[in-house]
């Protein structure tokens, strides 16, 4: 007798039944071992849902760790480069953490849920590192990744839609704030955070609530033109908004095999996240030394002439290659041809004129284009509604 196993290679998220029903393109990807949509119906229109109405992204596969105990704050202050003591309860902070060599392991967000209660959301799995770092600290680490389902609800009408869902007074929530609501009698946490650079929120519930949350959210959002969005649309939005992506814009230090391939926060333009006034944190000494000596690389956002995306391009100063592009896209809202590049110091200062060596193909014919580009001072996409409190209705 032949028996078949239904065990699949990839897991599904708590929203999967709903996601699958809306994924008209059947364009699936693998994110952290979960089946997630690259695109639902049309990448461009999904992208524009984020920028013009509301886009919903299932972020359940994010790694989530609960960090509690009397030393929780001190522990995190040791681990990450920013000052966690300055993070109030019900506030969220973007953070990076390094090894002792000052190389970035990953970036993520820290949710302060109480004086001694934090949640860390990270792109990479971080169990091992988090446990190593507990030596000497009275903290408890719990991997909550499978216990919490999450949706990013992003776009100009997102506040209105979530208010209709029952998040009364959400418009008063400041950027990076956390608010607590109940959904069908169970706790629902909403943070004004996201990966799109737009007005937007992330909604966190227990997996049992997931399907009902999806259904009601889309019901409330119908008149506000709510749409599901996949990984491709989110990627476009994040490039336009200036957000880094692990494994794309940097290699997590613990996975780097070849010497010199890791990057420091200073090299990635994240010095604003490093608080040297803290007496001790992982990587402090190395980063101080780097600061004194000067970094090897400089992270640059390039505004490139023309409309050909500079994917995988070499960046030149004169005839000399001084860097490479990590992310690139024609950005549909700012209508600019942007790229992130890692440039060898001392090149790559704001205002520097460089050249992108771009290859593109038309009907199997390759063309090489040397496009002038300029290092710009931060992302071009930075709408008022992203910062406004009260949040605008649309």
């Amino acid at each position, binding site marked *: 007798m032949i028996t078949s196993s239904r065990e699949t290679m990839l897991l599904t998220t708590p929203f999967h039944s709903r996601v699958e029903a809306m994924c008209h393109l059947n364009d699936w990807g693998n994110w952290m071992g979960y089946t997630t949509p690259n695109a639902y*119906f049309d990448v461009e229109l999904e992208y524009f849902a984020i*920028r*013009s109405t509301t886009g919903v992204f299932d972020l359940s596969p994010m790694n989530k760790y609960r960090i509690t105990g009397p030393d929780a704050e001190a522990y995190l202050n040791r681990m990450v480069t920013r000052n966690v003591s300055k993070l109030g309860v019900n506030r969220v902070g973007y953070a990076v953490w390094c090894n002792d060599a000052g190389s970035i392991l990953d970036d993520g967000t820290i949710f302060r849920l109480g004086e001694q209660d934090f949640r860390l959301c990270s792109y990479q799995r971080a169990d091992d590192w988090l446990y190593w770092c507990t030596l000497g600290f009275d903290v408890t680490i719990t991997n909550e990744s499978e216990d919490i389902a999450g949706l990013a609800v992003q776009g100009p*009408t997102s506040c209105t839609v979530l208010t209709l869902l029952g998040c009364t007074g959400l418009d008063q929530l400041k950027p990076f704030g956390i608010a607590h609501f109940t959904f069908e009698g169970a706790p629902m946490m909403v943070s004004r955070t996201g990966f799109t650079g737009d007005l937007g929120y992330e909604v966190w519930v227990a997996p049992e609530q997931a399907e009902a949350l999806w259904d009601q959210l889309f019901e409330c959002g119908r008149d506000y033109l709510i749409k599901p969005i996949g990984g491709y649309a989110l990627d476009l939005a994040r490039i336009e908004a200036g957000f880094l992506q692990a494994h794309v814009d940097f290699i997590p230090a613990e996975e780097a095999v070849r010497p010199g391939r890791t990057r420091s926060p200073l090299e990635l333009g994240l010095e604003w996240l490093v608080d040297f006034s803290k007496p001790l944190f992982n990587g402090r000494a190395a980063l101080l030394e780097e600061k004194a000596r000067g970094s090897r690389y400089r992270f640059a956002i390039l505004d490139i002439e023309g409309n050909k995306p500079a994917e995988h391009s070499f960046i030149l100063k004169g005839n000399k290659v001084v860097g490479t592009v990590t992310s690139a896209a*024609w950005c549909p809202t700012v*209508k600019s041809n942007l790229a992130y590049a890692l440039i060898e110091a001392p090149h790559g200062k704001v205002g520097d004129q460089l050249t992108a060596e771009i290859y593109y193909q038309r009907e199997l014919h390759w063309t090489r284009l040397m496009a002038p580009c300029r290092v710009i001072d931060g992302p071009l996409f930075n709408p008022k509604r992203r910062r406004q409190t009260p949040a605008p209705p649309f």
Partner: protein
Amino acid sequence: MNQYDAIVIGAGHNGLTNGAYLAKAGLKVAVLERNPYIGGATVSRELHKGWYYSNCSYVSSLLRPEITRDLELPRHGLQVVPFGGGTTFMRNGDHFHNFDDHDRLHREMSRHSKRDANAYDRYAADTSLQTKLIRPYLMRTPPDPTSMKPRDLADLLEFARSFMALGEEKLLDTIKFWTGSVGDYLDGYFETDVIKAHIAGSGIIGTALGVYSPGTAYVLLHHYMGDVDGNVGAWGFARGGMGAIAESLSKAFQSYGGEIICDANVDEIIVRDGRAKGVALKDGTEYQADIVVSNLDPKRTFLDITNPKDLPEDVLKKAQNFKIRGSSGKLNIALDGLPTFTGIDPRSRMMGGEMHFSDSLERQERAYDDWKNGTWSKDPYLDMLIPSMTDPTMAPPGKHMMSVFVQYAPPKVEGRDWTDEDKDGFEKSVLDQISNYSPDFRDLILHCETRTPREIEAEVGLTEGNIFMGELTFDQLLFNRPFPGYSQYRAPIKGMYMCSSGTHPGGGVMAAPGANAAREILSDLKRPNTVPGGYADD
């Protein structure tokens, strides 16, 4: 006080673009606008409380991305959001959906004809070839074929080379395409009425010609040569309505120090010793400037606001004979909810696309016959959209705004002026057409603004209500636009220029005429150029 380096007449998108580039070059510029609001035909107005009507132009594709980026229009508030697809309803209860996704479209076409579905690839390649020929010339001044100037000769040579590179067969196809009818062109690819009818609509919009009239194949191309973020042929909505385009251009213009003066109705361009010296308003106010740019259509420019004594005879004659026939009207409708359409799931994305109701070229040709007979079409061709399905700012939540472009409507009804009764009859023919496919539509109407060519001419200043400021036929394109010998934006009076859609490359909210004209003006002034060149496709 009223002294400027340059005065631009008309705060439509081309006037504002022209003003922006002149101001960016350091000139002191004023844009004068007759209406109390800016935008011309690129305007959105709250004509019913809570509803915003883009009551002239209604969709965007042709607006040059080079200008959007260079003038930083996104920073000044402009966002163009594409919409996907379209539908043509059929009399037999079926429909044709024009999907963006190539394979989904193939499946839909196959439902009507497998052969057509396959032929579509040949059609798409041949049409792309034509868009590729014209797109490089949008952000350039057309070369003058009679000129011996090095620039004109070099440009002509380049133009000729790109045509000769096609090879004999494609060159002949191209000549046929540029002079032929959209109906004949489509007959060369498709057998199914509804597929041909769906595509052919783009060949007659804004044009007083029928689907089988020579010249309409180019009009199809004119609607295909734009792009949204590199997707050639795609169309989108400006978030907040088309007025957002004019608003963002006005902010760019003002950021360079430009000044906009509304309620300034120009009576005449002041000319002394053969040179433009400024303008006089109807209220007697005068503004002085050595550069005067008209963003009015060629007829109004030369027959209304220029003294005929200041103009050479040939220009007066050419202006008089300029083809600018009214062919269309518009309904803007506030709806209490989303209407349902026969055979379409209300949740379908197609509700956000274009909707048409003429399922054969025969019906479209008959609609044109009505125009020739001096009346509006009894079975009109409609290009209907519900922008509030894409843009949440156009109507209150759960309510909708509907934009209905209507073809045909003659500039005069049986040779006389439009009356209010005519307008009611025109409106009824449109509402009836939609109601045939949407039983609950009529009951949802809260407010309806109906514009015949009479209203469009009176309120917007487009002669005969022609949306392109002059027909887009080969005799009025490229170096023939507006007239042979005057295609390089210079009027026959020194210091006077043209920048409207009546000049190359024509209408459709491109902003290219305004930008190209600014380049010529700056060149005459021997100032550094501020106007970008075009992006290359290849």
